């Protein structure tokens, strides 16, 4: 070896800003202020927060003896995911924590849903797809988890989905929000065709578009298009649609929504 690399003082070349600002807060301390008081709901929220799938079905079953399924979903399972989202937002949890917590939430939700007297009431319906000709869907799948964890019913059409199929399914299932993801500039052009086709059949809805090569300028070049840079922005944008904002209002207030000011 011609050089002793360990002799190089890296601190004079680079700064590990992630370590400089590293939080010393513990997840359990932050969670204290958000955890429900009821012992059953508290246990379920903690299972989600601590990524523990093993006993969550048992804990949900126990809770069902005294609490309604709706209450368990809203105030136990989704409350646990709210804490996870808070920890993720503070940089204490990483994305895999969110995904594994979501797996636990899903297991618990299945048990609770079986006890529902009728259909589960969701916040709204989001229909998702990856563009025609595009096999890349990891971003869509992450966004789907975040939306489900936020109380949305996600209808996932899959990847490499034809424009015609998307338009047909929107007409049939009437979602509140449509999303499309694409990695390549030459597949994202399907989004503008979907927009045109939906207009032709008289459908208007917020159409959130995202992915590697997708940019805000392009997405705002066609009607209904709402840009999203990160999967984590999905719930905030979809929530506005549920509040009754149309795509024009969401688009014109986009910066404020993304920055948590609207």
């Amino acid at each position, binding site marked *: 070896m011609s050089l002793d690399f360990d002799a190089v003082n890296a601190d004079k070349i680079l700064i590990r800003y992630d370590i400089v600002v590293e939080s010393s807060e513990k997840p359990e301390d932050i969670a204290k202020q958000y955890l429900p008081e009821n012992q059953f709901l508290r246990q379920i929220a903690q299972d989600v927060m601590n990524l523990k799938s093993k006993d969550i079905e048992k804990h949900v079953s126990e809770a069902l003896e005294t609490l309604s399924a709706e209450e368990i979903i809203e105030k136990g399972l989704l409350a646990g995911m709210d804490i996870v989202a808070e920890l993720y937002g503070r940089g204490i949890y990483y994305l895999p924590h969110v995904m594994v917590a979501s797996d636990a939430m899903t297991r618990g939700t299945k048990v609770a849903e079986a006890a529902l007297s009728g259909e589960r009431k969701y916040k709204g319906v989001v229909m998702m797809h990856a563009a025609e000709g595009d096999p890349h869907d990891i971003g869509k799948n992450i966004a789907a988890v975040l939306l489900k964890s936020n109380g949305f019913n996600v209808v996932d059409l899959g990847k490499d989905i034809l424009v015609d199929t998307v338009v047909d399914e929107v007409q049939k299932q009437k979602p509140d929000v449509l999303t499309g993801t694409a990695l390549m500039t*030459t597949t994202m052009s399907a989004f503008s065709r979907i927009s045109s086709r939906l207009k032709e059949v008289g459908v208007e809805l917020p159409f959130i578009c995202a992915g590697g090569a997708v940019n805000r300028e392009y997405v705002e070049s066609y009607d209904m298009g709402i840009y999203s840079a990160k999967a984590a922005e999905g719930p905030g944008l979809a929530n506005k649609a549920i509040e009754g904002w149309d795509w024009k209002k969401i688009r014109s207030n986009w910066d404020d929504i993304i920055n948590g000011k609207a």
Partner: protein
Amino acid sequence: MATTKYTKMAYASADEMVFGEAKKPISYGLGIKVGQGLVIPEINFAPRPGSEKSPESLTKEYVDYIATDIMNRAVTLGFPAVQLENEWIFQMSNEPEKFAKPVVAGQKAVIEKFHDQYGIACAVRHTCADSRLHENGMRYGQDKTHNYPEKMMESFEVAAEAGADVISIESVGGKEISDFAVVRQDIRGWLFGIGYLGSIDMEWLWTQIVDLAKRKNVIAGGDTNCAGANTAMFMAGGYLDKDVPKTFSAVTRAIASARSLVAFECGATGPDKDCGYEGPILKAISGNPICQEGKGAQDAHADLMGNLIAATCDMWSNESVEYHPEFGGSSVQCWLGVIGYEAALMNAAKQMKQDKVLRDIYVASDRFRGAEPYILAYDNAYKIGQAIIEAGDSYYLRAKAAGLKAAELIRDSNNKGKLKLNKQEKDTLNKIITDLNSLPDEEGKFVDWALKEYKDVPAFNPKNYEL
């Protein structure tokens, strides 16, 4: 299927490795000589949205604008050699005869014209798209809806016949499992997806590509794990990103190197593609030339090894840039300037016999910027290569050995206080070491376990891998 597994390193020591020189140099195209004392810029590009509407508009974009602009700028700046890389868009792979053939032939005509007029050495690499969908079937006859496996091989035929000099791909075997595993920080799943399934798919694919390349007299370049390790690296990002710990992405890179090596074992000769950050490990084992991308690829993405990854490259790339105007010309011209001048710097260092000094400066710049650059520094890449060949022929065992070696290198440097890690990175690294050490020593036992563990992963079908 005939593959030859490596039993010894191509280089006697890590210090032997340096940019612009490969143990197995190759010559092709219009005077291109790779790994023979000259680092060559390889410029990669994407057409503007909308240009894919017709074969005519796409050909105009790729040939009249992009290829012509590149060759003009290469001559303007006096670069002795240039390689173009065309990563096929979906429309080209879906209808190769209609969309791809005129593009390939047109680009070849452009570089021939410049070669004839100025004598500039040049070639075109065509990287065909792997559009195969795991849920529909990865092998012939399985995907009745799109026929993507058949179209993929047809793409190579069309490319080779129409004028490609080098053929490559970024294949997606095992991606259905690695995508599932990367967002759950599950290194055992990632090992199964890329280290095992990915290697099986590579062997199936690359024996065919090499056979075709021999028949058509083109170069079989190589196959990067863009779909797996680059997904992890991109998600790990920089210091503000919190999606995937960088220790996780570093270990996936080492595992991916055992998978990408399969192309060379099937007879590919390199140059491996730019986005294969596992390149230094492959070169250490095989001696085949590699293309890399770093600081000259900021048009496409940021990484934490902009300088370091140049240390052992034979070609130097910009990854990919969408064609558009800049103040200094078109985007392909500007980014060719960036990578071409860097290649000139390396070539000047070589003339002055300072190439190993420059190599070590590149490495010193980024060695401790993160876990992934640390394991890809040529000395550590060499050690990971040794771990792979010492593990024998089992795809599982050698990928596991590569991952463990990378994890141990990171841990040891961190323990010495050199490579800094944040808390998440440390916790993740400890879990990776525990998880990998908990796995069986026999491939059969591992596969039996993994097939049960991941049977419910969406789109996973063992038949895609003849399991």
